[in-house]
């Protein structure tokens, strides 16, 4: 069971800020594939991965990252702080 978090327009497109996901995906990319298959709103949110960033257990990483032992995955657009 992994906590999956969504921020900014990813959150708006999917329609919720976080959810618990039962998955056996080994990587972030495999998790994205599972989510895409769920519903149209997920497919839309994940249609262009180059427009997305991912954090695993609150560290920025990339879509190849392993999910072994991971508790929290977050998807969001490029950050615009400052």
């Amino acid at each position: 069971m992994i906590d999956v978090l969504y921020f900014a327009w990813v959150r708006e497109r999917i329609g919720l800020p976080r959810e618990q996901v039962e998955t056996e995906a080994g990587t972030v990319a495999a998790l994205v594939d599972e989510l895409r298959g769920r519903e149209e709103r997920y497919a839309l949110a994940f249609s262009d991965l180059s427009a997305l960033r991912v954090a695993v257990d609150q560290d920025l990483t990339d879509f190849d990252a392993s999910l072994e032992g991971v508790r929290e995955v977050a998807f969001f657009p490029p950050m615009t702080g400052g």
Partner: protein
Amino acid sequence: MRIVVQEHAFDPGAEVNAFAAGRSDMGAIVTFSGVVRDDPSNPLQEMMIEHYPGMTEKALEQIATEAQARWSLSDVLVIHRFGRLRPGEQIMMVATAARHRKDAFEAAEYLMDYLKSRAPFWKKEQAASGAGWVAARDEDEDALTRW
């Protein structure tokens, strides 16, 4: 080092005075403040800043710790707000203190470059023409390559 992520407004003048107070070991203090900018051709009603509680503090601490490792700094301050802000309000500030101005300036620019693109904040603007998420600028990402 002091890292603050908060919803309510802060007083940048009081913060910089507190940052400098009672210290004579540093000769140079640099501050950067980010302000919500209005656009007369498309008046801004408000800016909503979303962030990732937990990761935000962690990312800012990593960035500030790296700045302290790269430059000889006496102290570092980072304050960043989230929530609803109006035009002219202060979004954030960083302050760096060092013996020499070169360290203080470079560290402040480094903090800002990383904070822009590596701290999990997102801005949504509600303007006269409608609402929209602020897009990341290629030049902000490119700015990281100089460090």
